C-alpha cells in the first residue's frame, strides 16, 4: 500500500515540478515549489524519514518560499525570456538521465532488507544506540553523536550563509546608487 502511495505522490511531484519550470509567472512558479516541497515532505513520511520530512516542510515550504517571494518583491514577477529548446543542454540532461537509468540496473530493489546499506554500519546505530547513547530517536543519536562532526560542519554552512547574506545585502548603500550619484 505504501508503495502505491509513494508512486502516486512521486507522479504528482513530477507534474508540479514541470509546472514550476514551465510557468513564466515567477510568483506561480514559486507557489508550485512550495507545493513541491510539501509533496516531497509527504513522500519522506511514507519512507519513514519523519525528521527529514519535518525539516523539508520547514525549509522547503517555509524558508525557501519566503526568501523567493522576498526576492520577487525586490526584482520582478515575470520571466521575460520565452521558453526555448536549446539542443546542447537537452543532450547533456538526456545523457545524464540515461547514465543514471543504466546505473539502476544493479541497484538493490526498493525496500529490500538485505541491501548492503542495511547490513553494514547501520545495524550498530539501530541495535546499540539505545544502550550507547540512551535516547530513543536514532536519527538524533547519529546526527549529534556518531556523526556529530558533520553536524558541526552543517552549522558552519548555515553560519557561512548568514555571513554571506550580510556581506551582500546588509547595511551599506548599494552600488547602483553610488553610480547614479556620479
Amino acid at each position: 500500500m505504501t508503495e502505491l502511495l509513494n508512486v502516486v505522490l512521486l507522479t504528482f511531484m513530477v507534474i508540479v515540478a514541470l509546472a514550476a519550470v514551465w510557468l513564466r509567472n515567477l510568483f506561480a512558479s514559486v507557489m508550485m515549489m512550495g507545493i513541491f516541497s510539501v509533496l516531497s515532505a509527504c513522500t519522506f513520511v511514507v519512507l519513514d524519514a519523519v525528521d527529514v520530512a519535518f525539516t523539508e516542510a520547514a525549509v522547503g515550504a517555509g524558508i525557501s518560499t519566503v526568501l523567493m517571494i522576498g526576492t520577487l518583491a525586490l526584482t520582478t514577477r515575470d520571466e521575460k525570456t520565452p521558453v526555448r529548446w536549446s539542443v546542447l543542454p537537452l543532450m547533456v540532461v538526456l545523457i545524464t538521465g540515461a547514465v543514471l537509468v543504466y546505473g539502476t540496473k544493479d541497484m538493490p530493489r526498493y525496500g529490500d532488507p538485505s541491501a548492503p546499506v542495511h547490513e553494514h554500519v547501520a545495524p550498530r546505530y539501530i541495535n546499540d544506540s539505545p544502550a550507547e547513547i540512551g535516547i530513543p530517536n536514532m536519527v538524533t543519536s547519529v546526527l549529534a553523536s556518531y556523526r556529530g562532526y558533520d553536524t558541526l560542519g552543517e552549522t558552519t554552512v548555515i553560519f557561512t550563509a548568514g555571513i554571506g547574506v550580510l556581506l551582500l545585502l546588509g547595511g551599506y548603500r548599494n552600488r547602483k546608487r553610488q553610480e547614479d550619484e556620479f
Partner: protein
Amino acid sequence: MRNQMIPRVIAKFFIPMILLFGLYVQFHGDFGPGGGFQAGVIFAAAFVLYALIYGLDEAKKVARPAVVEALVALGVLIYAGTGVVSLLKGGKYLDYNVLAHDPIHGQHLGILIVELGVGVTVAAVMITIFFAFAGRGQSE
C-alpha cells in the same frame, strides 16, 4: 497590515505559542522528530510573523541586529566549544562520554548542548537573512 486590528490580535495570541512550540521541538528532539535545526526555523518564524504584522522597525527593536549577529556567531561557538571542552577533559574531539560522570549522562548532556548551539545559530541566521531581504525592500 500595521493598522488592522484582527491580524494584530491574532499575532499577539500566536507568537507566544509559536515560540513555545519551538522550545518543545528543541528539547523534545531526543524522543520524537525534531531538533535544533527545526526549532531554530520555527523560532525565527515567530519573529518573521512579528515583523510582517508590526513592521520591520518594530521587529528590529525586539531583535536588535547587532545582538542577532552576535548570536549567529555564538551558536557555532557553543557547538565547537563543546568539542573543546571534551578535549580539555581528556577525550577526543566531540567525545561526549567524558562530559559527565558516566557515558550515558555525558551523551545526554553533549547532545542537549550541541542541539542548542544549532538552534541558536539557525534561528539567528534565519532572522538575519529575513532582515537583510526585508531591509533591502524598505530602502528602495
